[in-house]
């Protein structure tokens, strides 16, 4: 069978696509509303508890102080690390090996069976087990590997998201055993969003390429504009006090998720189109400050789970400082 015959058979097998003429209008409307959309990656389990200041104030103050100290030392350490580990000559082989590893694990996960998991479906646990095993293998591969300096930040983010996805998958199976269809859907939905993020980060790594001064600057400008102008992020980025309290915990988690999406997208973009050597020092500072913002968001999430208002405010202060530095770094880059 030659290529033309294969082509003919494939076209017949797939069938004809009927392009919906309204698609561009829908896309225009979608873009118009994009700034107001909520990022769906909100782990429901973390948004159920009402905010209560239930921890002693002294303990909170000590904890908050510790969070600030730990984050400050991490930022300083990371900045030094970025400056010292950035190779003068790209470590080509290691980079290619790491990209191949990520690509292989992504493909392995892609090739797992799928379908809708109904609580009446007896085949569901077996399929879920295959998917969990594939995610765990990816995580194990990342844990065993030393990522090239360029990919270290995304490596750490991918591991975090994979771990959460596995945990969501396990939660879905627990709900399945309890015959709780809503619980199954919710947990799989949350896991799916985590994997979407992993996918996007993996893709940034696999297709990573050097930018020119012009393209790198344009990228930084655009990402900074998205981060600073993000509609849903404004309650966290625009005020010095955390506004989400009391019964507004879900809103607080949403706001954290919205800022995290912008920060992680920025981090992914800096890997996907990495800085030219002449801007390496500025890029190092920017990346270190984005990591600081990410750590501050971690601290805020932990504080939210622990219902610790003081630690939440401390995390918020650290986030504000980190974002201010990111804005200044981006302005320096031009």
């Amino acid at each position, binding site marked *: *069978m030659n*290529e033309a015959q*294969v*082509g003919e*058979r*494939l*076209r*017949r*097998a*797939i*069938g*004809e*696509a*009927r*392009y*919906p003429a309204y*698609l*561009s209008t*829908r*896309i*225009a409307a*979608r*873009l*118009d509303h*994009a700034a107001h959309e909520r990022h769906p990656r909100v782990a429901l389990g973390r948004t159920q508890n009402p905010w209560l200041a239930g921890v002693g104030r002294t303990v909170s103050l000590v904890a908050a102080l510790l969070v600030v100290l730990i984050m400050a030392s991490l930022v300083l350490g990371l900045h030094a690390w970025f400056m010292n580990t950035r190779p003068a000559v790209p470590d080509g082989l290691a980079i290619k090996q790491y990209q191949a590893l990520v690509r292989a694990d992504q*493909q392995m*996960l*892609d*090739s*797992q*069976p*799928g*379908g*809708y*998991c109904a609580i009446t479906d007896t085949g569901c646990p077996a*399929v879920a087990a295959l*998917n969990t095993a594939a995610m765990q293998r990816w995580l194990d591969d990342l844990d065993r590997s030393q990522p090239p300096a360029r990919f270290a930040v995304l490596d750490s983010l991918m591991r975090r998201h994979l771990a959460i996805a596995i945990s969501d998958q396990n939660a*879905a199976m627990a709900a399945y055993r309890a015959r709780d269809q809503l619980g199954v*859907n*919710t947990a*799989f*939905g949350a896991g*799916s969003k985590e*994997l*979407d993020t992993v*996918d*996007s980060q993996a*893709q940034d790594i696999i*297709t990573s390429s050097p930018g020119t001064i012009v*393209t790198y600057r*344009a*990228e930084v*400008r*655009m990402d900074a*504009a*998205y981060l600073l102008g993000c509609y849903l992020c404004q309650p966290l980025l625009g005020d010095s006090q955390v506004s989400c309290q009391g019964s507004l915990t879900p809103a607080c988690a949403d706001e954290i998720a919205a800022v995290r999406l912008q920060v992680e*997208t920025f981090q992914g*973009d800096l890997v*996907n*189109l990495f800085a030219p050597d002449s801007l390496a020092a500025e890029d190092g500072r920017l990346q270190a400050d984005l990591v600081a913002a990410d750590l501050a968001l971690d601290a805020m999430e932990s504080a939210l789970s622990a219902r610790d208002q003081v630690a939440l405010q401390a995390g918020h202060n650290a986030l504000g400082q980190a974002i201010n530095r990111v804005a200044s770094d981006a302005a320096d880059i031009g």
Partner: protein
Amino acid sequence: MILAAPLFQEALAGDQQAFVILIEPLLPGAYRLAFGMLRSESDAEDAVQEAALKAWRAFGRFRRGSDLKPWLFTIVANECRSQRRSRWWSVIRRSEAPDDLVDATAPIDPSSVDLRQALYRLPHDQRLVLVLRFYLDMSYEQVAETLRISPKAAKSRAHRAMERLRLSPEVLSS
């Protein structure tokens, strides 16, 4: 596709309308790609919408002078990967069997059914190369540009996929 300079500048400066005008001529192809990958008109529509949103977000990274089509199609293909996976974690009950996801009104060619099943069992990358090459009639150079691999690698990936389809018992029997 050569981009009109003022439109490009306007889109880069944040004009969403200019961006939609830029990508509009590519949308039928993008939809065809998504349909070929996902088998469902509604999923294809969702994938193209999501991809357009992501493309808009990433437009600052698009290099002026490059071809917009492979750049957009790469994003659509990645979105199809996510959509396909999301189906497993779907929160909407799908009562249809997987093969019912194709357009129910389209005439069914019995000899194509087995090939269709075999095609959708291929890994994402192999199916993608076949859809780009044969369903969208792209040259291997264009396929390579979309997949960000060499034309030689694109050709070899397509041949591996074709070989896998031919070796599939369902295809042989039809």
